[in-house]
């Protein structure tokens, strides 16, 4: 097992800077998800950890050991590829035995290790099957087994569930999480799917445009996004953000949203910090925290999406559009006007110029 420490890690491809000065510490045995939209630099980060790409500058440490110049075959890293990269011309057994065989392990030793890992991953009955005719969940286990047999200190997984259909993904997520508990390795998991990151990871590193935006537990990034990007990216749908100016009222500090009117008063702690900042702000709240109220923001219903368990109601238009998530039996339809109010405790405020969160004081 091994901790990973990325120090000021930067990668450029010509003029394009794929990763900008990334600092990240991944603890020993931790399951870290690198989450972000395509092109955010997460795969580049992963490839550099694996040694497939050399960093332009900065350092990668495994424990205390600097990985600069260590070739990828010698880093003790297990890698599970997006499409698993199973050797299709071999049997499951040959796939599992590949690593030890290449390192010149004795036949008996290889057999013992293959049998052990196959037992653990419930692959024993499939050992002599050709690897080109396996279902995805078996492929995933073979891919993990093939790496795990080398007892790597670190496991890297590159979007392993992106080729799997939605129904099966839930099964695979559970399976992966259980496997990680079994192996207890440090795992770095690259994904663009927040659901995967949320459900499996101990901590999530949210990335965008080659910049690390926030690192925290799934609930931290959900409840207290560090900036506007994270607020919008995490959550389905993301956080509602309305531009406005702080204004004093007889009930406390409120945000003047212009044509939308004024918001309910902020909580005292938040009001304190917002007063200190005094800039133009984004007033943010989660769609799932909105409640219909007597007083609050009065907005026309523009669209209603019923998605089974819940209903997403789109309110307003353009800059001031807001999404609200309700239980299915909410009686709103297009053309009606809804009065909504987010509870003061769930409101987050962001500086409109820097995009950074204004933390409650």
């Amino acid at each position, binding site marked *: 097992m091994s901790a990973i420490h990325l120090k000021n890690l930067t990668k450029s491809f010509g003029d394009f800077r794929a990763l900008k000065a990334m600092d990240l510490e991944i603890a020993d045995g931790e399951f870290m998800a690198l989450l972000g939209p395509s092109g955010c630099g997460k795969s580049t980060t992963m490839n550099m950890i*694996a040694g497939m790409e050399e960093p332009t500058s900065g350092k990668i440490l495994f424990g205390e050991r600097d990985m600069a110049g260590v070739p*990828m*075959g*010698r880093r003790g890293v297990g*890698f599970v590829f997006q499409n698993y990269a199973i050797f*299709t011309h071999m049997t499951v057994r040959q796939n599992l035995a590949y690593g030890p065989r*290449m390192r010149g392990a004795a036949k008996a030793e290889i057999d013992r290790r293959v049998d052990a890992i196959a037992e653990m991953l419930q692959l024993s009955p499939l050992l002599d099957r050709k690897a080109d005719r396996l279902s995805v969940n078996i492929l995933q286990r073979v891919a993990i087994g093939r790496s795990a047999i080398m007892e790597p200190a670190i496991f890297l997984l590159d979007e392993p569930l992106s080729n799997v259909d939605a129904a099966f993904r839930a099964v695979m997520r559970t399976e992966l999480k259980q496997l990680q508990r079994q192996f207890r390795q440090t795992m770095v998991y690259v994904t663009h799917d927040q659901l995967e990151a949320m459900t499996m990871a101990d901590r999530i590193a949210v990335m965008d445009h080659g910049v690390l935006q926030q690192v925290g537990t799934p609930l931290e990034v959900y409840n207290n996004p560090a900036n506007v990007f994270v607020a919008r990216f995490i959550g389905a749908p993301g956080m509602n953000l309305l531009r406005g100016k702080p204004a004093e009222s007889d009930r406390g500090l409120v945000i003047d949203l212009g044509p939308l009117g004024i918001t309910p008063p902020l909580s005292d702690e938040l009001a304190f910090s917002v007063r200190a900042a005094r800039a133009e702000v984004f007033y943010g709240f989660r769609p799932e925290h909105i409640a219909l109220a007597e007083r609050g923001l009065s907005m026309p219903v523009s669209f209603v999406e019923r998605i089974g368990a819940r209903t997403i109601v789109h309110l307003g238009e353009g800059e001031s559009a807001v999404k609200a998530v309700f239980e299915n039996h909410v009686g709103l339809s297009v053309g009606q006007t809804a009065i909504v109010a987010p509870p003061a405790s769930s409101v987050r405020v962001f500086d409109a110029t820097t995009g950074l969160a204004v933390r409650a004081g």
Partner: protein
Amino acid sequence: MSAVMATISEDKMGAVHAKPAQRDEGMRLGFRLTLPAQILVLFISAFPLLMQLYISVTDWSPLSGVGWWNAWEMWNSFANYTDLAADTRFWSALQRTAIVMLVCVPAEFLLGLALATLFADDFPGKRIFYSILLMPMMVVPAVAGYMFFMLFQSGGPVNDILSRIVGMPVTIAWLSDPNLALIAVMIADIWQWTPLMFLILLAGLVGVPDDQMKAATLLGASAWQRFTTIVLPKMKTIIIIALAIRVIENFKIFDTLYIMTGGGPGVATETISVYIYKVTTQDLIWGYVAAIALAILIVLSIVAVYAMRRMAKAGEVPA
């Protein structure tokens, strides 16, 4: 026939089983649509073959004064085939062809594979080298024959370069020495056909999945181990295709060789094609030629069938 009856009776039993009958209908339509093409193929391949078979059991020649369809008048049972078995010139030509093949095809394969491996990665000037490398393949074989005929003259460039290297005049009579002539012919063949091997093998090499190579590297495989455990097995089908093409083509080696040596000196470079050519144009015993050609066709068919079997076997495991 019974299968057809079965589908019909099944059809009568209910509309649920309509599918086999539909497939039958489709087959019949397909047969009708492809009929013209099939007749054409029949005339192109089957007719000459049958004609050849027919002539090969007669003493017919264009000088016999009767049309080939009347060749039965000169029926000689299987004398042509028994003659062939005893024809030492035929057997030594066959042996020579085999030697050329056993030297040229592996040489072309290894050179082609080495070059393909080189060209699978990027390097400066790759596109230019690539074009230059493919050029020999585009040269008309007869022209290539003249080129090498010139190159290997005793006062030619090959000897000239050799004398500069050695530092004294070299006057090797390449094309008039029985052993050297064969070597010169093989060099010309390797020069001309390595590019084809290279091209086919490069296509195969590029098709090897990159992520599987990376996975192998991450599991600690060295470059050589990756080559033997991933690249070669994945290229199996394409290697068999490339070898089969070259074995069959090389067996028929003729134009370049004929222009360089004319099969000589003596019969030193007389391969099977040259031998057939001479028997056809000089001896004019076409019944015998037909017998030789048929024998060779059988040999090559065995090679082709073997290659296709191996391919089908490899095809069970698509890369």
